[in-house]
């Protein structure tokens, strides 16, 4: 059981859309990193979901002003993140890259971030931010000796030290152990509940489910879906699924399933193996056990063939 995370409240709770992205495209040479992406999000946790190379980091960099869009416009708290320097007092970023000031201690790095954001009492702020992520402010070791998970937590502390209203986190759970993941997810949820806008990117579906949040799905540089996580999950479950069934009599089982209407197609591989296509995974899983029992067929194995994240995203993009 972890102790409750104590986070200072943000300066002012913004109302309505805090991040507005309007028809943003970004070309990196001949590569289209983002294509005509539009959305707006408000306070609370929003997960940015997509496979590697989907354009998540590019989008987050644009939101923080680290690069400009080739086309379209972005407003964060009503300001242009590329040109309005004052916005950076209200913006915290955990960048994807591992880079840190290797020779410095965690406390020095977080205090440095506080100083760069013109926080009045840097030491107090740094101690508070390190406490949020369970790191010892008095640790004398330089961060080059830290594990990947500890470095990730230093980055989160550095991004939170100036008490930002908008927090952007690029794959912040990478490298964390399960306990720290839970702790960090709890922190993000609490930040969102306080009225901050928290945008977290991830390529892991289960991770995003735990945020219990709004979701933006990005694939191949396009916004493939957006909305409540449950809606996205349902959408993903409704796509056609292909499974391999191994049983004592594949032909008899396939015929029973077709007759029952829980599959839309079958392909017999051998006497023991059949591929089936279904659009209702939940109903199919219940039907297959019933059909096997009714036909006196021994069901040996059910293997989903396209449950990996890439195929889910391919489906969403191709809809």
């Amino acid at each position, binding site marked *: 059981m972890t102790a409750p995370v104590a986070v200072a409240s943000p300066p002012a709770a913004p109302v309505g859309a805090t991040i507005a992205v309007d028809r943003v495209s970004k070309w990196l040479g001949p590569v289209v990193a983002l294509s005509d992406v539009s959305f707006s999000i408000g306070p609370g946790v929003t997960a940015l979901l997509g496979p590697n190379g989907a354009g998540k980091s590019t989008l987050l*960099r644009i939101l*923080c*002003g*680290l*690069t*400009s869009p080739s086309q379209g416009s972005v407003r964060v708290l009503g300001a242009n993140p590329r040109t309005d*320097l*004052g*916005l*950076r*007092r209200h*913006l915290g*970023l955990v*960048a994807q*890259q591992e*880079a*840190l*000031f290797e*020779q410095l201690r965690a406390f020095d790095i977080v205090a*440095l*971030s506080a*100083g*760069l*954001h*013109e926080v009045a009492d840097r030491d107090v702020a740094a101690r508070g931010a390190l406490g949020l992520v369970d790191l010892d402010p008095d640790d004398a070791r330089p961060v080059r000796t830290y594990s990947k998970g500890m470095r990730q937590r230093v980055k989160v502390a*550095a991004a939170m030290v100036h008490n930002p209203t908008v927090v952007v986190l690029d794959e912040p759970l990478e490298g964390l152990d399960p306990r720290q993941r839970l702790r960090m997810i709890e922190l993000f949820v609490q930040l969102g509940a306080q009225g901050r806008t928290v945008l977290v990117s991830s390529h892991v579906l289960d991770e995003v489910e735990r945020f219990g949040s709004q979701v933006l799905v990005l694939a191949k540089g396009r916004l493939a879906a957006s909305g409540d996580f449950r809606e996205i999950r349902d959408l993903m479950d409704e796509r056609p699924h292909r499974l391999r069934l191994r049983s004592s009599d594949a032909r008899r089982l396939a015929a029973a399933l077709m007759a029952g209407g829980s599959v839309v197609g079958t392909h017999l591989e051998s006497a023991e193996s059949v591929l089936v296509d279904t659009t209702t995974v939940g109903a199919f899983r219940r039907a297959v056990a019933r059909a096997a029992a009714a036909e006196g067929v021994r069901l040996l194995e059910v293997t989903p063939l396209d449950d990996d994240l890439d195929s889910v995203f391919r489906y969403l993009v191709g809809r």
Partner: protein
Amino acid sequence: MTLVYRLLLRSLVSRARVVALVAIGLVGVLIALAIRAADLVEADRTVAITRDLLGGYGLNLVVPVTALVFASAAFGDPTDDRTMVYLWLTPLPRWRLVAAGWAAALTVAAPVAVLPVVLAAALAGADGRLVGAAAAGAALATMGYTAVFLGLGLLVRRALAWGLAYVLIWELAVARISKGAARLSVSVYSRSVLSAVGEVVKPRNAAAVSTSLIVLGLVILAATALTTRVLARADVA
């Protein structure tokens, strides 16, 4: 700004960098010792050789190379190791970051570049005036080159190669041949100060001391303004 200055200064001072550049400076000191050991009969000949050493080796090689190494690294190192993102996200105006970068590069480059030149002048047997002129010329050149090379680390990946090409092609070749190009040469103005203050023979295309000071000041202002613009428009990884 002090925080950014300290941060950049700390990243600039690497042992390998300082040792390599001090070694280049020490070659000039050794040449100066050789001049003194030669014990030339003609005093004018000694002055001429010393002047050539200070202008040729000191202001044309030691100073620009030292300034190039440190200035291009001021923003080049954070860009390469991807810590630039932390600097970029500060709400501080970009010109203050550039000013901090220039000050940090100058803090390291000045002693490494100017001291060997002054030491070489003194050891070669130059009088107090020429030693002072060497210090003034080297200091001004260091300030000018540091400002010029500051933005290079942001603009190009191989900043040292581009900077050396600039020194060799523009400063040491084109500016010597063309009077028009000489008006845009840090080397010509710093050597003009050296010759005027030290009362030695003027370099080709020399300018007056007042002109040299004004132009070097303008070069520093223009270069930092350009670097500020480049920094503000940079894509940060």
